[in-house]
């Protein structure tokens, strides 16, 4: 064992690490390896035919496009919400703050049917949009709304701590010297919260691409139009097309790894940025 771990007088290293590694391998790693192996057993031609089929390409466009738009909406409104919660005191602020985590705790199927009910043509909000010709439920807009709900806590929870870092003395000094609110935002606040915003945006975007439960109720699920990639995998499985499902699953897995990598890069950049700003 020497060289593998540093000596310690505490017991249980072998037992706990052994069990943790075994459980991790059995539940997570081996099943994921099965997906990679299944895809590797396909020929290139078969693989490409599935993952580059027009229906698959349309689903990537929707999954990526809607996730991107939702993450952008969340970046703007997430900042506004975080700012309101950090800077202002008003009745109900603490309750509102606690509720930001609701999308983490609420089952996705519940948010799915609830959003559909709210944004349907006769729904609480949908009925006011309908006269203007704006249809949310059963269109890509609905997908975007669902992904906005799912991604919201990622941005707010990233930005909140960074807003506490903004030096308010600087803001006050700038204001005393005649700076406009926009100038203060642009030169003092924005640079401080930018890393947190970037990090929250990436997390929300990554989560949106894989999301299933909250989307399928509001999406309408029309092939080529409102069909997300995870749903296409489910359809392949229902047709017992394991190869097709595995190939699409592999593409999504590869995207997840890319997102994971970029999240780590963004966060590493953010840490450096914050350290640099402090000196």
């Amino acid at each position, binding site marked *: 064992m020497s060289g593998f771990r*540093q000596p310690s007088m505490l017991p249980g290293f072998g037992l706990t690490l052994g069990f943790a590694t075994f459980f991790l391998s059995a539940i997570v790693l081996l099943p994921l390896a099965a997906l990679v192996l299944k895809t590797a057993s396909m020929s290139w031609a078969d693989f490409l035919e599935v993952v580059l089929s027009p229906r698959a390409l349309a689903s990537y466009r929707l999954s990526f496009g809607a996730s991107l738009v939702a993450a952008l909406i969340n970046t703007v409104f997430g900042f506004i919400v975080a700012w309101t919660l950090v800077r202002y005191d008003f009745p109900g602020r603490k309750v509102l703050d606690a509720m930001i985590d609701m999308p983490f705790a609420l089952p996705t199927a519940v948010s799915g049917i609830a959003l559909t009910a709210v944004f349907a043509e006769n729904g609480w909000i949908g009925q006011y949009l309908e006269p203007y010709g704006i249809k949310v439920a059963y269109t890509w807009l609905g997908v975007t709304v669902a992904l906005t709900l799912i991604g919201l806590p990622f941005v707010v929870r990233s930005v909140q701590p960074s807003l506490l870092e903004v030096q308010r003395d600087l803001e006050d000094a700038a204001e005393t010297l005649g700076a406009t609110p926009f100038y203060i935002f642009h030169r003092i606040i924005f640079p401080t919260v930018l890393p947190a915003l970037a990090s929250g945006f990436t997390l929300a975007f990554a989560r949106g691409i894989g999301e299933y439960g909250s989307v399928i109720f509001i999406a309408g699920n029309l092939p080529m139009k409102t069909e997300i990639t995870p749903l296409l995998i489910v359809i392949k499985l229902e047709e017992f097309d394991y190869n097709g499902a595995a190939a699409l699953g592999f593409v999504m897995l590869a995207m997840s790894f890319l997102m994971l990598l970029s999240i780590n890069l963004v966060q590493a950049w953010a840490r450096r940025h914050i350290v640099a700003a402090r000196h």
Partner: protein
Amino acid sequence: MVGITAASFAEMARRPGRGTLRALLIRWAFIGLSLSFLAAVLLAPLAVVFATALGQGMGAYLKSFADTDTQAAIRLTLLTAAIVVPLNTIFGICAAWAIAKFEFRGKAVLITLIDLPFAVSPIISGLVYVLLFGAQGWFGLWLQEHNVEVIFALPGIILATLFVTFPYVARELIPLMEQLGNDEEEAAMTLGATGLMTFVRVTLPKIRWGLIYGVILCNARAMGEFGAVSVVSGHIRGLTTTMPLHIEILYNEYAFVGAFAVASLLTLLAVVTLIVKSLIEWQASRASGM
């Protein structure tokens, strides 16, 4: 101007430029925008769950729980959580002990791998088990010959739920235990305590709030998981439908009161989870304030 609290007046007095009309306008614009946005995407969906569930009166609401399939779905969800949550709790404690208490090579890789299920789409979490244990999966034939059902049965539902809730307890405990250090455990060992005694009497009291928080999050996700379970369940009514899957079936049959009634239970679970979370955070901030 209603709603300006004494605290915000004090705030204005303390800081220059804060009482101006412009500052007030910005303030109310931010609060207004925040509230409208949250009302549309967060509060309205929550309210609509209860409004629809109770839309035809309390009688209809309660009657939807008399349905035997609904009861079976609730039982299956409770059973799944009762198996999954303890397993992932034991895993979380073991992983956190090994990672936080010892220095070894490959630690960073291990932490990344534990977080992996968070990065993966729930559909993938179900798909991998179908590829392993499904009718045409790697072990499909062998399982058929031995009459073992995994996919479209309880074991598949449990495996998929284990996968999606895998990191919750571990990722709460690892940073907490790293931050608390080893001094007290080492002191206990020096004084002759056994390893188990050290964990139960020294470590556990220090990490209990983080542990409870990880467990309730794990439980909320286990009871509410939809995508992963949907892939492996086979949707056999009354047999392999958990509460979220039963919501989907009822909803697609236009049984809205029933669907939203089941949804209201899961919404209450989410609300209770958040309340417990807030209480734990309040507890922690009070403890650190002392």
